[in-house]
C-alpha cells in the first residue's frame, strides 16, 4: 500500500466517522445569532423609515410639523386676556384740536397680524 492509498483510506475513514449535522442546526444557529444581536430601538427604526427614501423626508417633516402644531395648539390658552381699559373721565373727540389728532398717528409697517 503506497502513501497515496493510505491518505485516501484515512480520508474515507474520517468521512465515515463524521456525524451528519442535524437539519435544524443551521436554523438554530441563525436564531441564536439573531437573539444575540442587539435589537434596533423603535426610534432607530422610525428614523430609518423617515430617511431611507427621498419622499420620506417630506413625510417626516409633515409628521413632525403636525405633532409640533398639535402641541402648540394644546399649550396656548384659548383666550389671552386683553388689556383692560382703565376708567377715565370721558373726553369728547369734538373738543380735541385736529393737530392733536394728527399727532395720534405714527409710522407703521402696514402688517396685518395680531399683537404679540
Amino acid at each position: 500500500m503506497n502513501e497515496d492509498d493510505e491518505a485516501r483510506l484515512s480520508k474515507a475513514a474520517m468521512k465515515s466517522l463524521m456525524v451528519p449535522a442535524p437539519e435544524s442546526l443551521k436554523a438554530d444557529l441563525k436564531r441564536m445569532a439573531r437573539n444575540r444581536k442587539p435589537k434596533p430601538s423603535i426610534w432607530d427604526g422610525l428614523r430609518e423609515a423617515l430617511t431611507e427614501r427621498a419622499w420620506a423626508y417630506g413625510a417626516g417633516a409633515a409628521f413632525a410639523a403636525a405633532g409640533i402644531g398639535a402641541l402648540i395648539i394644546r399649550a396656548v390658552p384659548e383666550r389671552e386676556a386683553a388689556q383692560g381699559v382703565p376708567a377715565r373721565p370721558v373726553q369728547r373727540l369734538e373738543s380735541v384740536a385736529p393737530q392733536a389728532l394728527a399727532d395720534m398717528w405714527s409710522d407703521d409697517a402696514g402688517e396685518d397680524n395680531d399683537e404679540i
Partner: protein
Amino acid sequence: MTKYSLAVLLALAALPLQAKPRAPRPGAEELVLKALAGPATSYTAVERVQVFLPGRKPKALKVNVAALPGKVRREVLPPKKKAAPLVQAREREKAGTGLARLRALYEISVSTGGVVAKRKTWKVELRLKSGILRRALWVDRDSGLLMKRETYRDDGSLARRERIVKLELPAAVEAAGFEIESASGPWSPDGYVLAAEGGGTRRYSNGLESYVVAATAGKIVVTGDLAEDDAARVRESAAK
C-alpha cells in the same frame, strides 16, 4: 417598505380624520345683522387702525375698546404716553337700520374668513352695484363681533384697515365711563372731529383723512374720504 414606513404613512393618513367637520356658512344678511348688533356680552379689546395713503408710508394708531351690550367705548392711545388719551363712548346703531343702508348700497356676499385674534371668522364682502369691492368685514363666527374691516379705493388698493389685535370676550366691564353725551352735529365715523366750519360747510378730520358736509339748496352733500355707507349715514343724520 418597512413596518416603520407603514406606521408613518398610516399616521399621516389618519390626520385628516381629526379635522372638525365644516361649519355651515350663514346667510349674508343674517351675519351682517349679527355684526351690527355686536356681541350679547361685554368685552375688551385692543384695535389697530391703519391708514394707507397713496405714495406715503402707512400710518397707524391704537385704540382700547371696551363694550357693553349696545354700547362701545373707544380710547385712542397717543404714541407719546404723556399725552392724554381721547375717549369716545357711543351707542350702537340699530342693526336693522344699518343693514337696510348696506343693502341699498352694496351686494353682500359671505365666504370663509381666516383667524383674527385667535378667533375663526366669516368674511363678508360689500361690493358696489358696479362690482367694485368697497369693504371687507371679518366677523367672529361665535359672537358676531366685527374683528377686522378693510376699506378699498375704486382701483382696488387698500385704503384703511381696522383690526382687533387682542380680545377678551366675555370680559368684566364696569358701566362707568359709558355716559353717552348728545351729539352736537351730524354723526361722524369713529375718530373724526369737526376741524372747520363756515359758509354752510363743515369739515371733519381724523388727522389724516377728511370729509366735508355741505348744505346746498336744502340738500346735504358729503364729499371726501368716506365709503358710501358712512357718507350715507352722515347725510341721514345731518338731514334730521
